[in-house]
């Protein structure tokens, strides 16, 4: 037992264990505290430098590997040979016992221990102070500095003995390999080496044993997670004082990032090289400093031809200011995206391109140039045009579809179809030939023409059933040839044996039969173009589709024409019939009038008068029918004469009021003479129609108002009743032919009166209208220009 150390001494009560440890922590000599069993509970910083294996918490100083003290024969002392460890087990303190790290006894420590007591007997703690011997101390300070460097390095710095056992392991190593220092100390370095590279370690050790270094040796190691890590290794021998190699230091640098960035670089350049886009870089003066294969492909220049040259080489003269603008933007750090322009290739050809330019910056963010990505958009433009033309075609298709389905007039339909198909097929001219039967056999009649004046065909004979035309007009199918003059069917028919002189020049030829739903060949659409190979399959399909659509419409149209001609016949018939009807009517009226005079008996006289009324009504109806058919045929004739309109109204209202009618006509017509030039008879017919309607459709009233107004060089007549009135729907239709309001059931009429009235007023450049409220009555009005206005 040593007197200076009182094993039973308590720590000063005013200093806590924590504070005590704090003091120890920063002392320059290695100090650690362990329990009775040798388990370390505290070690200071210096301790870590000197005895890295001693760590806080659970390392045991009784382990064989903890201390590397040697005896005089340089033999490592085992734990049981170390007196201070023996003292621990005997719970004794020691003082100034010397231990050496080398044979010569220059490096070593003077070890002392203290015993701290706790509350319980088991709480005994042993503090060991290792005072480095003079040289060790000096060396150790240097080592502290070196250790700090080692610890802070990102590289793995490992030392091992000649058997490969790891002696030191820095933070960098932990970072790269994933193992902690504690995990690796004392382990063999071989656990880091992939099995395939074991041989390598042998070589390294051999080199080291020979006292040689290994510089920047690139290899692969395995980390804790089992991943392969590419490394650059520098291995140096560690020598003892006598110069003998006792181990090796290894500096390993993780080069996966470097490899990655190299790989990235390689990949990027591969991308740049393989890109279809031209990728060019230039400095701020516009001098080209890189040029890929894509750029060569677009512009024709090889890299060597353009490096060091100005980018303006590629810019057409008239666009040189573009480069000024681009450079200005680049200078201010802006990007230019998808700028569409024209550039010049080596052979002087203009190339449409889309250019994106970005500023290039150095590592300090300073703009040093620009990268340019150039795309040849020739194809893009072509396909854009193609799409546009497709859209245009769709538009035409749509419009022709609408037109031909909404129009019934044969010629209009055919012209539309011919125009549209000529445009869509890209033909120089297109024609529709009607398939008509003539005595000498079938032949065609030119109906419509597009792209050439009709005179171009007028002097030529109509196409016959020649070998060329026959398939079309027999409905056999579509003919489409790139060069008709080279076709076997061409030139085989007399008299021309080919196209007659003066015929429009045709090389490309396409002919499509237009076949009705019933299978009749209505005609043929024929297209021509002076150049070869103009008509493609798509044109054929398009025209065929329109032809099919047109055929349906033509069917309808033919039906329509038939109906129209029937309708004309009907009008003719009505004209004739009404004429014929009038003759017997005249006879009937004549005899009735004779009888009227001869018969005195009142009842018979009344009956006769009623019969005469009916005959007169019949006459009016016949007149209406006749007039209507004349109007339809545009044959209604007018005899204009000048007369005083006011006077006519006056006389008319007198006539009505003198006759035995149910209503009284109340005229409000002033007394000023108002001259108009009109067909007196027709205008009277108009007034009769309106007055009779007013009476007829106001069965419960007894007045009809007749008003005449002069305003702005015209006269307006208003016939107002207090009758049934009209719904807005009825007001809309009331001037239509044969229209009769639903509510007029039980009231006679053909529905022609107002129709004729409207026709007559229209013919006089007048206006006819109606204002009405259902249940309250109607107001029909028409205006006519005053005489001066007509003349």
């Amino acid at each position, binding site marked *: 037992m040593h007197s200076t150390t009182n094993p039973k001494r308590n720590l000063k009560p005013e200093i806590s264990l924590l504070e005590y440890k704090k003091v120890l922590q920063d002392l320059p000599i290695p100090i650690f505290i362990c329990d009775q069993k040798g388990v370390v509970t505290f070690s200071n910083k210096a301790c870590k430098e000197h005895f890295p294996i001693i760590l806080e918490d659970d390392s045991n100083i009784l382990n064989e590997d903890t201390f590397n003290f040697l005896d005089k024969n340089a033999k490592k002392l085992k734990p049981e040979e170390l007196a201070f460890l023996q003292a621990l087990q005997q719970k004794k303190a020691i003082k100034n016992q010397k231990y050496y790290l080398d044979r010569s006894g220059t490096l070593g420590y003077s070890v002392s221990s203290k015993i701290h007591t706790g509350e319980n007997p088991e709480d005994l703690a042993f503090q060991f102070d290792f005072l480095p011997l003079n040289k060790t101390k000096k060396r150790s300070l240097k080592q502290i500095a070196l250790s700090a460097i080692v610890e802070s390095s990102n590289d793995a710095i490992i030392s091992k003995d000649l058997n490969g056992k790891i002696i030191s392991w820095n933070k960098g190593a932990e970072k790269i390999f994933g193992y902690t220092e504690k995990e690796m100390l004392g382990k063999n370095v071989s656990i880091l080496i992939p099995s395939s590279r074991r041989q390598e370690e042998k070589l390294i050790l051999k080199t080291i044993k020979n006292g040689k270094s290994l510089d920047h040796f690139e290899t692969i190691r395995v980390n804790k997670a089992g991943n392969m890590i590419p490394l650059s290794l520098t291995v140096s021998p560690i020598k003892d004082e006598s110069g003998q190699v006792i181990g090796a230091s290894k500096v390993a640098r993780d080069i996966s990032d470097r490899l990655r960035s190299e790989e990235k670089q390689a990949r990027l350049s591969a991308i740049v090289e393989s890109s279809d886009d031209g990728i060019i870089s230039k400095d701020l003066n516009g001098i080209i400093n890189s040029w890929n294969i894509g750029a060569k492909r677009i512009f024709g220049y090889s890299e060597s031809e353009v490096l060091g040259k100005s980018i303006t080489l590629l810019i057409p003269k008239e666009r040189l200011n573009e480069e000024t603008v681009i450079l200005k933007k680049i200078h201010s750090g802006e990007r230019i995206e998808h700028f569409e322009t024209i550039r010049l290739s080596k052979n002087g050809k203009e190339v449409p391109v889309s250019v994106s330019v970005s500023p290039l910056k150095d590592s300090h963010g300073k703009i040093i140039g620009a990268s340019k990505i150039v795309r040849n958009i020739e194809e893009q433009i072509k396909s854009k045009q193609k799409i546009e033309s497709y859209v245009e075609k769709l538009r035409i298709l749509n419009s022709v579809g609408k037109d031909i389905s909404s129009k019934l007039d044969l010629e209009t339909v055919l012209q539309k179809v011919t125009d549209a198909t000529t445009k869509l097929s890209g033909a120089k001219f297109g024609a529709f030939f009607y398939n008509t039967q003539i005595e000498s056999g079938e032949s065609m009649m030119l109906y419509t023409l597009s792209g050439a004046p009709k005179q171009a065909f007028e002097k030529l004979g109509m196409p016959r059933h020649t070998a060329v035309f026959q398939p079309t007009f027999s409905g056999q199918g579509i003919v489409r040839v790139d060069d008709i003059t080279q076709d076997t069917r061409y030139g085989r028919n007399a008299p021309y044996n080919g196209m007659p002189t003066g015929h429009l020049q045709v090389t490309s030829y396409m002919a499509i039969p237009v076949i009705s739903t019933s299978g009749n060949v209505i005609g043929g659409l024929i297209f021509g173009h002076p150049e070869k190979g103009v008509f493609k399959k798509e044109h054929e399909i398009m025209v065929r589709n329109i032809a099919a659509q047109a055929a349906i419409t033509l069917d309808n149209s033919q039906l329509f024409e038939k109906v129209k001609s029937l309708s004309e016949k009907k009008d003719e018939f009505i004209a004739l019939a009404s004429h*014929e009807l*009038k*003759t*017997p009517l005249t006879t009937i009226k004549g005899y009735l*009038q004779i009888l009227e005079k001869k018969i005195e008996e009142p009842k018979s006289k009344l009956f006769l008068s009623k019969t005469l009324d009916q005959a007169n009504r019949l006459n009016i109806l016949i007149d209406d029918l006749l007039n209507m058919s004349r109007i339809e045929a545009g044959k209604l004739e007018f005899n204009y004469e000048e007369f005083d309109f006011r006077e006519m109204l006056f006389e008319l209202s007198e006539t009505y009021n003198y006759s035995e009618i149910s209503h009284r006509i109340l005229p409000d017509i002033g007394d000023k003479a108002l001259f108009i030039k009109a067909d007196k008879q027709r205008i009277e017919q108009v007034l009769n129609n309106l007055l009779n309607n007013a009476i007829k459709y106001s069965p419960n009233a007894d007045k009809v108002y007749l008003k005449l107004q002069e305003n702005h060089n015209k006269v307006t007549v208003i016939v107002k009743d207090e009758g049934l009135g009209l719904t807005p729907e009825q007001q809309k239709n009331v001037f239509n032919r044969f229209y009769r309001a639903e509510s007029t059931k039980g009231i006679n009429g053909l529905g022609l009166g107002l129709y004729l009235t409207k026709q007559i007023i229209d013919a006089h450049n007048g206006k006819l209208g109606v204002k009405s409220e259902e249940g309250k009555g109607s107001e029909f009005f028409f205006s006519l220009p005053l005489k001066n206005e007509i003349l």
Partner: protein
Amino acid sequence: MNMKTIFLVEDDQGLRELIHFLLTDKNYEVEAFPNATSFEKRLETSNQDPDLILMDIMLPDGNGVDLCKGLKKSNHKKEIPVLLMSAHANPSIADNSGACDFIKKPFDIEELYTRIQKYVV
């Protein structure tokens, strides 16, 4: 008795008979013809011209307007007044025919009498 003679040309038998009756009733001497041919033949062969010709325009074998124009060209017959009748609504068809008047079918008896008296005094 100095009876006035009227030549009536009307293809419709019913109307022809009615007018024949009406005119006879008013003491005219009436010669009625159903068509243009028989009328023209009679007019040529007749020793005495009628005082008036009352003629329908639409005849099965001719047109009253044309017949009238023909008469007006002939030196002997141009003085005979011709009164045309028709169911045609437009009296202008008789313009330039040389007819003295036009009467529209159907007509009132009184209207017929008035017109005829105007030309046959």
